[in-house]
Each structure stands twice: as structure tokens, then as C-alpha cells.
């Protein structure tokens, strides 16, 4: 009796399990299958990308799931090159050798960011003015005191303290460092010949901290310090930022408006297409009275023919291209609230042409 009741119980359990599985398969699955897209790379656009992903997958394509892993530009490029992800993100465009390793890679500028010069001087919360060469000299260690004549000459309305400058830089490899050192190389011959530019460099002086938020925390808590921080982080942490002289001679504070002004200075013609090299494109020292000098685009990377990625099919490829189409169009409306500048019209045009050129096994993909 005991064993028969046990067998009966087991049978009932098995029937329930099989029944629910069969029932789920027949009635539970949505009409369209769930599609999962994977992306990886830069942390800089991550808050913006996450916002577009959430809005897109909850309001527009509910059958879509997009996973973005922010592990840094370098990781984005290597995951993309190894075809481990459907799209990659990077702050620095691919170099010649990286383009060779990932043939037919396309650059899609997705949003625009700026790098601020953050400082902490007791009793001076606004109004500090600096030029590119002075910033380079400070980080080189040739200007070491806040009341150096070069700085006081620009800031005669401020009483600058007689105190050593503490410089703070990024200790981890980062796209922010890449663009900041590119800017310093552009404005200072000495910087260019002694330090150079890259995602990490051999800093001649100063203290390093890992990540934008740690640099922001160190600058805000350490008197007489100066550092460089991405715009979104600087604005959200209410760090004091310096106005930088642009090529028109104006001292411009970093803001969404001055970032957009720099982005709009990009030439309407002569920019590369998505399939060409973007290595020489930069918005550093952009012309324009209101343009902030350290402004950089950040890129999504896609393959021109998506069939090279394992597990890709026409349906998935269409979802991917249409999502990126959304990011560069309607998704841009989410950018300002998160302190990112919207893409200027000429970049959107280039992106549209790039997305229209994407194929799957030679077949064109409907972009929207």
C-alpha cells in the first residue's frame, strides 16, 4: 500500500511537470520569439545606452532583450573583433591595425561627450580660467604653484593661493585619458614629445585614481587639486570646473550647450563614411565662439555584413539595425537629461547611410 501510494504520487508529479511544460510550449510563448542582442565596451556612453535600451525594449520592442556589458573601450574592441558580441562600443576609433583585425567594421558615432578640467580651490568656486598650454604645463609639472604668473595673468579677478598644485589623473586605461592626452598633445609640443597620448600614459607627476568617480571624489575632497573628468560625472557631482580658452580666444565652460556647439562645428562634408577610418576625426579645439575645446564623439561598432557573427539570422540582424537606428534618432531625446549632447544633423546623415549599407548575407536590411 505504502509503495503504491508513493508510485501514484510520483506519477501525478510527473504528469503535472510534463503538462505544464507542454502547456507552456503551446500557450505560453509569445507570438514572436524573444530576440537577445549582446553588446560590450565603453563605460562612458553606458548611462545613455542603458536608457535607450530600457525605453526601446519596454515601450517599442517588447520581444527584444539587449544586454550591454560596460567593461571599457579596450574590451569593447576586443569582444567586437573576436565576434563575441553583436555590437561593440568605443570612445577611441579603431586604429589601422585594429581595422585590419576586424575587416569591414563600421563606425557609428552615437553620442558626444566632453572632458572637464575640475579643480578644488578653497573660496574659489567659479571663474577659474585656463588655456590648453597651461593645463599641459600643470600636468607636466612645469607649472607647480597656483599663483604661477601664467595662471594669475589670466585670472586677475581671483586671488590665487600660494600653494602647490596637486594633479589627479586616471590610473586605469580609459577613453577619457585618450582624448585628454590627445588634446594636450595638440596644444603642447612638449607634451606631445615627452608623454604622448593613449588610453594610459606615463604621467610625469601626480596622483592616479581608478575611474571617473574616484577622480571626482579625490578632487572634491582634496584642497588645491586639479583633475580631468567626463562632463556627465562633473555635472552630477557638482565639481568646480574651469573655463578653457578655445581657438576663438573665448573662455568657455563645459556644458551641454558648449559641447553641442563644438559638435556642430564638424564640417558638413569631408567626414569619412562609416566604413572608412575615423582615426583622424576629432572635435578637439573646434572652431566656433561658444565651442568647448575638449569634445569627443563615442562610437558603436558594427560589421558591414552581419552574417559574420555566429548565431546571427536575418530576423536578429533586422532587430539590431533597427535598434541602432532608434539610438541615433528618437533615442537622442534621452541624451540631454543624462548630460550627453545630441548628435548633430550631419553625423545623423552619415549614420543613416552607414546603417542603410548593412547587409545580412548580401541582403539589405530594413532599417526602420
Amino acid at each position: 500500500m505504502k509503495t503504491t501510494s508513493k508510485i501514484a504520487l510520483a506519477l501525478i508529479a510527473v504528469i503535472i511537470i510534463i503538462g505544464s511544460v507542454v502547456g507552456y510550449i503551446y500557450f505560453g510563448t509569445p507570438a514572436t520569439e524573444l530576440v537577445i542582442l549582446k553588446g560590450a565596451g565603453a563605460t562612458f556612453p553606458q548611462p545613455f545606452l542603458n536608457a535607450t535600451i530600457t525605453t526601446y525594449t519596454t515601450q517599442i520592442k517588447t520581444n527584444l532583450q539587449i544586454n550591454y556589458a560596460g567593461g571599457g573601450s579596450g574590451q569593447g574592441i576586443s569582444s567586437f573583433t573576436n565576434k563575441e558580441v553583436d555590437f561593440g562600443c568605443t570612445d577611441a576609433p579603431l586604429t589601422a591595425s585594429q581595422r585590419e583585425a576586424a575587416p569591414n567594421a563600421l563606425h557609428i558615432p552615437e553620442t558626444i561627450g566632453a572632458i572637464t578640467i575640475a579643480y578644488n580651490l578653497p573660496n574659489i568656486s567659479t571663474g577659474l580660467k585656463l588655456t590648453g598650454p597651461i593645463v599641459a604645463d600643470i600636468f607636466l609639472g612645469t607649472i607647480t604653484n597656483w599663483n604661477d604668473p601664467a595662471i594669475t595673468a589670466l585670472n586677475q579677478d581671483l586671488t590665487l593661493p600660494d600653494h602647490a598644485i596637486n594633479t589627479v589623473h586616471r590610473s586605469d586605461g580609459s577613453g577619457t585619458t585618450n582624448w585628454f592626452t590627445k588634446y594636450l598633445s595638440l596644444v603642447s609640443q612638449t607634451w606631445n614629445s615627452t608623454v604622448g597620448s593613449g588610453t594610459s600614459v606615463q604621467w610625469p607627476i601626480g596622483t592616479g585614481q581608478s575611474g571617473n568617480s574616484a577622480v571626482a571624489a579625490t578632487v572634491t575632497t582634496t584642497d588645491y587639486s586639479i583633475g580631468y573628468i567626463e562632463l556627465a560625472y562633473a555635472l552630477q557631482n557638482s565639481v568646480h570646473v574651469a573655463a578653457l580658452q578655445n581657438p576663438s580666444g573665448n573662455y568657455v565652460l563645459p556644458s551641454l550647450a558648449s559641447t553641442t556647439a563644438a559638435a556642430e562645428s564638424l564640417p558638413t562634408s569631408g567626414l569619412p563614411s562609416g566604413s572608412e577610418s575615423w582615426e583622424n576625426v576629432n572635435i578637439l579645439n573646434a572652431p566656433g565662439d561658444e565651442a568647448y575645446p575638449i569634445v569627443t564623439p563615442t562610437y558603436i561598432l558594427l560589421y558591414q555584413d552581419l552574417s559574420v557573427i555566429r548565431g546571427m539570422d536575418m530576423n536578429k540582424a533586422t532587430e539590431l539595425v533597427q535598434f541602432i537606428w532608434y539610438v541615433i534618432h528618437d533615442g537622442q531625446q534621452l541624451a540631454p537629461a543624462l548630460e550627453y549632447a545630441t548628435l548633430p544633423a550631419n553625423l545623423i546623415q552619415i549614420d543613416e547611410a552607414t546603417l542603410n549599407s548593412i547587409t545580412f548575407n548580401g541582403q539589405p536590411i530594413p532599417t526602420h
Partner: protein
Amino acid sequence: MTKQLTGDNAFKILTAVIVASAAFILILNAYTLITGSETVLREFGGSFLTGRNWNPVIGRESFGVLPYILGTLLTSGIALLIGVPLSLGIAIFLVEMAPKIVKVPLSYLVELLAAVPSVIFGLWGLFVLRFWVLDYIEIPLNNYLGWIPFFSGAPFGLDFFTAGIILSIMIIPTVASVSREVINAVPDSIREGAYSIGATKWEVIRHWVLSYGRSGIFGAIILGLGRAVGETMAVTMVIGNAVGPNAMPTTLFQPGQTLPSLIANGFLEAPTPIEKSAYIGAGLVLLLISLLINIAAHLMVTRVFKFKGGAVE
């Protein structure tokens, strides 16, 4: 009878497999580090150990780990210098002097210190401790003893000294609780004998208890040193992360790096194969340093102390 034997055999094999896997993981680890660092070792050879540059800029690559080896030894040295006397004091007090009502809660508290995640120590170091160290230790030392090279420079709070202090706090629970066990294990007959010939409490502790337990206490110190050498997160947050010649220790009050902090900072985003290889090479050097410390400690315990006699084993 036979059933008993098979059970025993199975257990024997199981434990043997577990032991073998520990050895296997270490070998695998070393193998990965050696093959991974091949590129950089081939390129720079011995100058990887003695070089001072850490320049990852493409076209100007140059890698040497000397500043970080010195940084690791310096911060661990500060940690031992400050942490060991404190830990021994705690252990002696807990065993020899503390009334029972204090003993138990205090032991728990000291051990609880070991449960605090290192990132918490790092955050506390970055936001709180650094300013105390700067205002009450570094600036006075710099003002009055600045002529001694160790205390020269411009104190900033994020430097070797702060990192050493954070490490000294982090090794206290390890060193203190192991030393406490060692002192506890000293037989009472030793103490009674010492008292009977008229020794004071201080003399008993100094000449009998500590001497009897010295190899165990030395082991505790080595455990602490191991923690200090390998600690990454907390050190990275307070050491200032300078690179290249700027990280060569010339004073305690300057930013620098240890081998673990160097790897933690740069490895994940290293864009070129040679740079990645350089970080793996730094890992290899760190593994070798840890091995050397352990081997040296083992030799000291077995040769020196046993030879002198009187050690607990």
C-alpha cells in the same frame, strides 16, 4: 570489514585528489603567468626587473617593474613595523592580562576586523583616514623632520605612508589572533617555573612566553606579511597610483604603486598585446616574491629557531 576498508580507501583517494588539485592550480597559475609574460620578457629581458619606465603609449613602449617591487616591499614593511607590535600587544594582553569579562568580547572584535572587506578599508582610507594621517602625522613629521629623506617632499595623503598604515590595520586581526593562539599554547608549567625563580610579569612574558612561542609568532607575522604583499583594493585606493619614474620611492610622502595595484589599475583596459603581457609579467614577479617570502620564512622557522631550541612545533 571489507566495506569499512573501501570507505577508507575512497576517502583517502578523495583527499588525495583535493590535495593534488591545489598543487595543480598553483602549477597552472604559474604556467599561465609564464606563457602570458613571454612577450614582454623576450622584448625587455632583465631590464623588465630593473627598469623604471612604464610607458604604454604606442611606439614608445617601455616596461620595468622596479618601482612597484620597491613599493610593495616598502608598504609591507611599514605595515609590519606598525602592525606587529600592536598585534603582539593585543595578543599578550588577551592571554596574560585581560580579565575574563573583557577577553571574550575583545577577541571577537579583533577577529571581526578580519571580516571587513578590503574595499571598505579603502573607502575609509580615502575619505577619512587620509586626512588624519596628513594633518596629524605627515605634515608635522615633514615640518620638523623634513631633513630626513624619508620624511621629505610635499605630503598629500595619498602615498606610501597612508597605504602602509591601512595595511598595518588590515594585518592586525591575522597576526593578533594567531599569536594569541600561540601564546595560549605555552604551557602553564613554563610560567610557573619562571615565577618560582622570582621573575616579574614582564620578565616572564619577555624571556619565557615570547621566547617559547617565537616560531609560532614568526609564522603569524609571515601570514600578515602575505596579506600585506597581496592586498590590492585598499592599497589602490590610497597609494596614489603614480607610474614610471614618478613611482620610484624617494620619500614616504609621495604617491607610488605596489605590484597588485599596478595590475588592478591597468590590466583590464590594456589595449596592446605587449602591455597586457607586461601586466602578466608583473603578476609573475609578485608570485615569485610571495614564494620567496614563504620559502625564507620556512627556512627561518625550521633552521634558525629549531637550532636554538625551545620552539613549539
